């Protein structure tokens, strides 16, 4: 069951990611990227990260991608003009990418033995073991407001600066 769930959403994520790279129109790329982010949210749930899955859907698939699509529509961005690439790139690019990823998969497989595996709902089932509620909003919130309080406060400053920067950059010139 978990394997099926993983394979379905991993394949959706990879196909959508390939679509992000090969589509010529920015809107198609943006919609495919929303697909990647949605399936990644399901994989986070599989890993027991409830809070991160919710934040992924709200912040990435919701806020960031809406911003992207808004800018694409505002600038009326059309399809990209294809440039002729060298023969070497066209012939070798995809095989080399596949070879590289095969090597990465091989070494990751070697480094992480079969014993370590993921199964869904490990932290939410009955019983009160020490890891109950791992990854829930409560556990993440407790760590966020105790151990990581200073980074959290600095984050608010970062967002304030980003808002000011965006306004300064995007407003009309004051001549």
């Amino acid at each position, binding site marked *: 069951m978990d*394997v099926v769930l993983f394979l379905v959403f991993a394949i959706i994520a*990879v196909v959508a*990611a390939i679509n992000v790279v090969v589509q010529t129109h920015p809107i198609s790329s943006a919609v495919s990227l929303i697909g990647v982010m949605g399936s990644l949210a399901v994989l986070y749930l599989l890993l027991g*990260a409830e809070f991160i899955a919710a934040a992924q859907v709200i912040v990435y698939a919701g806020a960031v991608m809406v911003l992207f699509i808004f800018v694409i529509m505002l600038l009326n961005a059309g399809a990209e003009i294809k440039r002729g690439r060298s023969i070497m790139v066209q012939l070798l690019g995809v095989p080399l990418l596949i070879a590289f990823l095969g090597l990465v998969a091989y070494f*990751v497989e070697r480094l992480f033995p079969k014993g370590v595996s993921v199964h869904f709902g490990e932290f939410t089932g009955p019983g009160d073991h020490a890891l109950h509620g791992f990854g829930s909003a409560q556990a993440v919130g407790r*760590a966020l407001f105790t151990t990581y309080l200073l980074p959290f406060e600095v984050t608010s400053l970062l967002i304030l600066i980003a808002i000011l920067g965006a306004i300064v950059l995007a407003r009309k010139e004051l001549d």
Partner: protein
Amino acid sequence: MTEVPISWFLTLSAVLFALGVAGFLFRRSIITVFMSIELMLNAVNLSFVTFSYQLRQVNGHLFTFFVMVVAAAEAAVGLAIILTVFKNRSTLNIDDVDTMKD
């Protein structure tokens, strides 16, 4: 077999990151290059959450949270820069934005 090996998640993360790098290098539209960066950030987030699961530590989730916040701020500022570039040059092709080369 009902359990997924942890290496599959890491391999998926590597695949998504490599596709992000490919998009970053080969695409010519500023907006798509920017989306490829978001794809790479997402791939790294998947690695963080996977290691967090393996080590049974909540710290990885916190790092993912901070990466999301920084990515949101970066998207706001980056898209404002794209708007400014388009206003000044009327193009979204990165090959035409080459003042620093001359």
